[in-house]
């Protein structure tokens, strides 16, 4: 757990100013190399996808099936994580290229971009790890913090979490609908049905493409191609689920209450983003394939900074945290994943006792900061 209790108000603001300086410095240095990077990743992703689909025309040969499926899965992961997620954050808007812009991009997931941008960029990134506000926190289905009141249905969460992982993109799309706001009258049925239609449109296109058009084109290879596409989509779903859960739910990630946020300053906002996020250690392949969400901390501090720069600033952020005595949580993919599953398993059951009262601030050490 973090040791922020001794951080004075002045320190928090100084921490914020240091981060602002890093942000300004990086954004001012964006240039040709960054543009080449994202264009390169996009081109590589498209070639990988084309290559995978072409290989699958020979999918009755097992090696071709395996290679084609792997290429397609990799392409879909790159598209969702390093490209789609980051483009939709506006990380590349500075290039003013309408082809790589947050207002024009559609990702290869069933959530329409506009809906995803609202629930992810606005709700989740503003209310990171705030109980009752951050709808990413457990995606409303799971109990991921002792601060959430226990219910017998959570006994099943270790099982349905696995199911959620498999159909993750559908889970996200439905969760973007925020159906729980309808009964209270916060959201009209009309708005919901418009959104549903948009989702249905994307679902239909994905299903036709992956489970009808390409299999049909393969003629006798219909079944292997269909299975390959299904495998690629499932792999992408499980991977995205893993990376995203590792970002906020391992041991060490803190949660906050709404009261703690009252009058939050920029410095305090930064501290909350830091304490609510966890990094994954790894090499460049891991960073690329996770859409640099392995640098979840850097991403939450600077959501619209181009992702290729996170690795560069990570050591500076870590040093800054050391200087201010703030914890900087990171661990290997295996460790973080294990930690997440342990937590989901533990919290399927009531308790732990000290946090049983839902209104109690689950991270008292932050009280000193706020």
């Amino acid at each position, binding site marked *: 757990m973090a040791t922020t209790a001794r951080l004075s108000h002045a320190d928090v603001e100084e921490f914020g100013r240091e981060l602002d300086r890093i942000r300004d410095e990086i954004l001012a240095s964006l240039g*040709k190399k960054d*543009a080449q990077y994202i*264009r390169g990743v996009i081109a590589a992703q*498209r070639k990988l996808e*084309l290559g995978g689909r072409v290989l699958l025309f020979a999918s009755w040969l097992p090696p071709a099936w395996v290679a084609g499926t792997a290429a397609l899965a990799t392409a879909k992961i790159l598209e969702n994580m390093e490209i789609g997620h980051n483009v939709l954050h506006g990380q590349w808007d500075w290039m003013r290229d309408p082809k790589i*812009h947050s207002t024009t991009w559609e990702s290869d997931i069933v959530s329409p971009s506009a809906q995803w941008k609202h629930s992810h960029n606005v709700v989740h990134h503003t209310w990171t790890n705030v109980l009752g506000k951050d709808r990413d926190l457990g995606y409303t289905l799971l109990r991921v913090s002792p601060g959430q009141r226990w219910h017998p249905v959570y006994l099943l969460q270790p099982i349905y979490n696995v199911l959620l992982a498999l159909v993750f993109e559908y889970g996200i799309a439905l969760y973007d609908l925020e159906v729980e706001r309808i009964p209270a009258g916060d959201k009209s049925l009309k708005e919901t049905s418009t959104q549903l239609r948009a989702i249905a449109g994307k679902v239909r*296109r994905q299903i036709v493409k992956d489970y009808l*058009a390409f299999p049909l*084109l393969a003629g006798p290879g219909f079944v292997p191609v269909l299975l390959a596409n299904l495998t690629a989509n499932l792999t992408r779903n499980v991977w995205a689920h893993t990376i995203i859960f590792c970002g906020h739910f391992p041991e060490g990630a803190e949660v906050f209450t709404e009261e703690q946020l009252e009058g939050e300053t920029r410095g305090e906002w930064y501290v909350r983003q830091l304490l609510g996020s966890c990094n994954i250690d790894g*090499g460049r392949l891991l960073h690329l394939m996770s859409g640099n969400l392995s640098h979840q901390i850097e991403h939450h501090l600077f959501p619209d900074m181009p992702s290729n720069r996170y690795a560069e600033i990570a050591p500076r952020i870590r040093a800054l945290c050391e200087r201010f005595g703030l914890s900087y949580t990171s661990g290997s993919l295996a460790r973080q994943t294990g930690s997440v599953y342990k937590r989901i398993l533990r919290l399927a059951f009531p308790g732990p006792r000290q946090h049983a009262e839902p209104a109690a601030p689950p991270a008292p050490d932050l009280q000193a900061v706020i």
Partner: protein
Amino acid sequence: MGAGPIDGWDRAVDVLVAEASHGRFWAASGAAVESAVLGGLVGAVRWLTTPLFPEDYLSLVNPLWCGRELRGRIEAIHAETADAATLVIRPGRGWIPHKPGQWVRIGVDIEGARHWRTYSLSGPPGRPDGCITITVKAVPDGLVSRHLVRQAAPGTIVELAGPDGSFVLPEPPPRRLLFLTAGSGITPVRAMLHGLLTPAAARGGAKPRVADVVLLHSAPTSADVIFGAELRALTARFPNLRLYERHTRTEGRLRPGDLPDLCPDWAERTAWVCGPAGMLQEAEEHWAGSLDRLHVEHFRPVLPRAGGEGGRVRFTKSGRETDAEGGTPLLIAGEDAGVLMPSGCRMGICHSCVGRLTSGQVRDLRTGQIHGEAGDLVQTCVSAAVGPVEIEL
């Protein structure tokens, strides 16, 4: 950071990314793919490429195969003077032939970010190689003009839009014409001259298309005259073209008062004028009584006015906000904030940049006038915020 087996993959990733950023292999794989896919099949193919478009994959093969957006490739760059160069650009599919005198908008990536500027097409339409040309003069501190003249290299892909503009000759052209130009203002006129003179020559020197053309052009020195050698050669070849060069460094600026001496029948000619703002203003005053005989082309906004309060600007469609100064056009403020702002001439003549005002007021930078009601369409390139502003862009 981590070590172990993963590091071995890092190089593979490097290679993958590096290779992809070169982008132009398979470049010559032929027009067969192009026509097969683009001919009516697009709708069907779209089902295979969703959420992308077929062209997003096709442009991996050839960046010019980009259906919804017009692009061009810089094929060659020729120096014209010490600070001006002609760019030969091959437009992709979808280019509509221009009329001599019109301009094109060109989007250039500089340090990763796209910048749009307007340039007159400096040649007549229908070049045998299918290319178009623009001729750019590097202005001091000019971001795009200096880049195009000094840094750009053949092979570069640029975005295109156009052609457009009403600085063109009527059909049929008048019998007697006067062109008054200075500096890079010769560019649209050069395109017109070719249209006027060369077809006559092509018809075997029969009756000339125009009785006579007078061109009065100003430049600091003889060496600074863009297309100098060519203009002189044309004059020698066509007796119906008269060229007067004014070398302003030694002879001073050309004034409207000089006109009667240089071209006694100026009042009977239809005039096309293109050059610095001061010269255009003088011309408009000089032709005040017969403005129907005067055509002008501005290359930069007339007298941009600074001042005013500025304010917080919210771009409602893209959800961006920024603080804009009172002298900064909303167009620039939006672009700097990463909003995809439509734009054209960037000087208040083409209306490609309009956005609907939802609240607040703006100052017209040309006149200083403050205006705006919710629902108004305002030209962002010549409007600055007066207090908080919301605009639907």
